[in-house]
């Protein structure tokens, strides 16, 4: 619709080849099948220590009062009706690794080592009752977890036309 490429050259010759190291430097994403997960591993015990140092100020703990004004959303809650949390809403565990690595801690994003991200991921999964305290999270184990909410996700079924969906 917007481009008429009939008279275009095969290539405009713009841009430069991306080398593997160019890509590696920014290829931060982790897919549900585990693609993108780095070497390293961690469990909840190590993760808890990190959480209590670098995360708790903004995210609180299971015992934080519901009235507390937190800078970040609640991450650990076994109370029912707590809205969307990791335990009841997140469909993939890989997302947790991916997100924490790229965006947390909020005030120092991208400052954790891969090892630390594995650890704190393990802790959050354990605190949300997905895994046990001793379970080791790494590139093998993390993609295998089936999150409680995964089965709830369905694709968009809206499609225009008179029906409201």
């Amino acid at each position: 619709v917007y481009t008429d490429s009939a008279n275009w050259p095969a290539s405009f010759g713009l841009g430069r080849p991306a080398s593997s190291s160019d890509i590696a430097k920014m290829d931060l994403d982790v897919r549900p099948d585990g693609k993108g997960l780095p070497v390293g591993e961690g469990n909840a015990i190590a993760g808890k220590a990190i959480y209590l140092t670098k995360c708790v100020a903004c995210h609180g703990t299971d015992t934080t009062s519901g009235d507390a004004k937190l800078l970040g959303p609640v991450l650990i809650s076994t109370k029912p009706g707590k809205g969307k949390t990791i335990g009841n809403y997140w469909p993939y565990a890989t997302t947790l690794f991916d997100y924490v690595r790229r965006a947390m801690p909020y005030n120092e994003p991208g400052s954790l080592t891969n090892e630390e991200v594995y650890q704190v991921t393990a802790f959050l999964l354990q605190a949300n009752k997905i895994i046990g305290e001793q379970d080791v999270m790494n590139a093998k184990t993390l993609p295998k977890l089936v999150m409680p909410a995964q089965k709830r996700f369905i694709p968009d079924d809206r499609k225009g036309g008179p029906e409201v969906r």
Partner: protein
Amino acid sequence: VLLKSSYGQVVQKAITHAELKIADPTKVLGPPPGALGTRSKFETPVKKASDISSRTPLQDLFGTITPSDLHYERHHAGVPVIDPHSYSLTIHGMVDKPLVFSLADLKRFPSVTRIFFVECSGNYRGGKAEMTPQEICGLTSQSEWTGVMLSTLFREVGVKSKASWFLAEGSDAAVMTRSVPVNKGWEDAMIAYAQNGEAIRPEQGYPARLLLPGWEGNTSVKWLRRIELSDQPFMTREETAKYTEGVKDGKIRQFSFVMDARSIITYPAYPQQLQKGWMEIRGIAWSGRGKIYKVEVSTNGGKTWQDARLQDPVLDKAHTAFRYLWEWKGGEAELLSRAIDETGYIQPTMKQLTDARGQDMGGYHLNPVTSWLVQRDGKVLFKSEK
């Protein structure tokens, strides 16, 4: 004091509008032409900011273009500062030739200019009577965007036929990511570097962003640094924990990209005080599925509906101004508008939305008909459905 100079030179270079107290403007020389224009000191449209977003003052606007500095903002870790000379966009993954484009490269490609809206999918607030259009749905704005079609870049890198999704990644502190079906990339996705005639503003993704016309704003990743082609979605936090919505039977609707048709009357609206007589009821209507086909207006709470006049040209996936002549003779009235798009979709009521989606539908993709109550004394109040 006068400065002597060549032909036509005027003299009050240093006097600002604010200092001038003009009784009769025909009797006092004004400031000479300058390097940048200004707003009148009598006009102060502003966005309404929360910690995570700021909203366009729809009730203060005319026509369909949103002034760039009034474009709504929604970001997840603030506005990054990006040097255009060190900026680059890398496209890799399931492609024949992974490439890195500088901003200058992007600008040399065949370009396209197109007017369309960008709207946050969380664009609804209700709950009280004293709410302005800005507060109700100010997370939508429209610009004239210029950039290169993503399809042009896809062609350049040679996207493999098995690639079905791509990841778009920003270079803000959230390193924002969304998965997008490759089809949208071939269809009408754009990498925009300009907005309303000039370089895109920092708050809107300077120096370059993805734009997916008609789709929820979050997918139009700003400060775009990387695109990775893949044969599956990446299931980022924004497309799983966020930007998904509960529907019936405990299900969660995911990848609900398109913004459904919607409209709002921006005049008269709270906090305007109505005067009796003829006026034009005005608003905007838009649909992520194509052109607005029709806007209907009711002045009696939905008992009867009349066609509003649409401003030409009616553009695809664009805010479309609508107008309807009305004489207020005093007395109570209830003003509503509903948009109908070219697919035949009719903007629903909040009840229709709840009926279709259930009570746990959350705050995304809410596009209910907005209703304004005109009181006997001319006060106009929002009739919140929640």
